Each structure stands twice: as structure tokens, then as C-alpha cells.
């Protein structure tokens, strides 16, 4: 019984020290700038992949829903462009009656400025098109996209097909 107290006090000191070290270690891991940058990169990539697929997809039976989704995936100049052309796009898409479904087959972030919240991304896309009549076709495209971080996450600010000879 007389030994119990010093042992416990020593235990408490050791436990406090251990807690301090692990707390510091956790704080350091969380405060790691590289890690925050890596998370931004992965967030931009994931958002870019899904938005590029969305902008290449439209259901001919639900053109208005598709166009609303396009606006939701974009920001800045690209969003303005899509909004201005919305009525015309809806008309053309409804007239054509083609349903397209796009899948991003690979993508990579090529530039990332975490501080200003901008990124560039390249992506390859496979697009399956089902015309109103006739057989479906599959097309492969390659895109370069500019992304901007907004209150609602990373959104597309530009999207360009990379033509041959523009490297």
C-alpha cells in the first residue's frame, strides 16, 4: 500500500508524456502542407472526372434536367457560356434526339494552385451515343479542363477538346 502511490504518480507522469507526444504527432500530421495539397489534388481530380462525364452526357428525353446538371458542374466563363446558349442548346438537343453517356477512362491533374483554388486536368472520355433511330456509336475524346474551387467544391471553368497539333 505504501508503494502504490509513487507507482501511480510515475504512471500518471508517463501517461501525460505519452499523450503529449501523440498529440504533437497528430497535430504535425494534420498540419502537413503536402498532405493538404494532396487532398486538394484528389478532390479536384474526383470532381473533374465526374463533371467532365456529366458535360458529355445528356438524356434526349430529359434535356432540361441534363442542361441544369451542366450548369451545376460549371463555374465562371464556361457556366456563363452554357447559360447564354441554354435555350438554343435545348432546342438542338431535343431536335437531334440523341442520348449520350460518357465515361472518363483516365484523368490526371497537371497543375494545381491550392492557394488560389485553380487546377488543370487532362482526361480521356469514352462516349456512347444512342441516336433516336439506328445503331449506337462509341466515340473517344480527349479533353483539357480548367477547374476552380467554389463554395460547392471544384467546378469546371473551361473544357476544351485537345485537337491534333495543339501540343
Amino acid at each position, binding site marked *: 500500500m505504501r508503494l502504490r502511490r509513487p507507482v501511480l504518480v510515475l*504512471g500518471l507522469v508517463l501517461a501525460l508524456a505519452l*499523450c503529449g507526444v501523440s498529440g504533437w504527432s497528430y497535430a504535425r500530421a*494534420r498540419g*502537413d502542407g*503536402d498532405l493538404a495539397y494532396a487532398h486538394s489534388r484528389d478532390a479536384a481530380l474526383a470532381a473533374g472526372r465526374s463533371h467532365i462525364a456529366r458535360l458529355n452526357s445528356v438524356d434526349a428525353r430529359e434535356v432540361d434536367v441534363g442542361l441544369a446538371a451542366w450548369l451545376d458542374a460549371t463555374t465562371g466563363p464556361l457556366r456563363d457560356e452554357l447559360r447564354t446558349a441554354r435555350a438554343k442548346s435545348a432546342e438542338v438537343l431535343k431536335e437531334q434526339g440523341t442520348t449520350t453517356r460518357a465515361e472518363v477512362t483516365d484523368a*490526371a491533374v*497537371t497543375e494545381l494552385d491550392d492557394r488560389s483554388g485553380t487546377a488543370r486536368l487532362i482526361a480521356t472520355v469514352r462516349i456512347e451515343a444512342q441516336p433516336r433511330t439506328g445503331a449506337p456509336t462509341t466515340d473517344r475524346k*480527349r479533353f483539357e479542363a480548367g477547374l476552380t474551387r467554389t463554395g460547392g467544391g471544384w467546378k469546371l471553368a473551361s473544357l476544351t477538346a*485537345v485537337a*491534333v497539333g495543339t501540343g
Partner: protein
Amino acid sequence: MTTTEETATTARAAQEPAARTRLRRFLLPLLVAALVVASGVLLLLAGQTKHSPAAANRALTDRAATDAVLDEVGSAVSRVFSYGPQTLTRTRADAHALLRGQAAKEYDALFAQVQQRVKEQELTLTTRVARAGVTRLTGTRAELLFFLDQTSVRRGAKATTVAAQLSVTVGRDGGHWRITAIEAR
């Protein structure tokens, strides 16, 4: 005050310090145990944060390593997909040095077909990297995406340029990046 009441009061008074002693006896061990558990949780969280997939992938976070792998693999891709009647042997030697495993096997099969056409049609193919990016990068492995422009010239015909996209996997081998898998996109 009756005798029974008196006895009860004395008993309560005796119980109070006993309860306090019991609390004191358990408070310290409990505190130690709580601190140890908290430390364990913090260490686990720190470990998870440091070794998360995002942290393990050094693409762009290590700009120098990212640029190095882009340069080395980009030039390798251009070299193995550029050939002409005069450079067939050199291209094949390059490919032998730069490709490994599945990529080497597939390339050999492709090259056997191409060789014939190159000689017959005096075909020259030049591959240029238009855009490139790194998807994943660790010390021993990397995944890259290439947008290529491939210009081919046949005897008596005009040059044509087409787009090609490749997902390329490379592994570290003797201080160099070697291509282990190629997939057309």
C-alpha cells in the same frame, strides 16, 4: 437525541472519509488509463493521416519527382512509338531497354506486324507528346496519362496526324523508370 440516532450519525461520519479514500484510490489509475487510451487514439489518427492514399501519392506534391517521371517516360513513349525503314533496329533496341513484362510482350507482338508494313510501304511514324500528367507516383511505381500526336508518312502519300491516348504504368528498375503496362484510351 436517542442512542440509536447517535449511533447512526457516528456511522455516517465514519463512512464519508472511507468513500473519499476509495475515490482517491481509483481516480489516479482511471486518469492514467484514460490518458493511455487517448494517446492510442491520437497515434492511430496520426498514422492514418500520414499513411492515407492521398499522402502516399506524391504526384504534384513532389514537383521535382513528378517532372522527372514525366520527362523520362514521355521520351521513352516517343522513342518506342517512332520508327522508319532506317531506324527499325534502333527502335527495337530502345524498346528492349525501356519496356518490361506485359508491356514488352505486347510491344513485341505489335512490332512484328509493324515491321512488315514499315518496309513494304516505307512507313515512317513519329510520336510526339501533346499533353501528359501523372495520376499516381510512389518511390517505386507511377501511373501516367499521355495525349499523343502520331504523324505517319507513307511513300508517295501526304503525312497524316492522328491522336492517340495512352495510360502508362512504370516501375523503378535500376535507377530508371521502365514501362510495365500500356493501355490505349
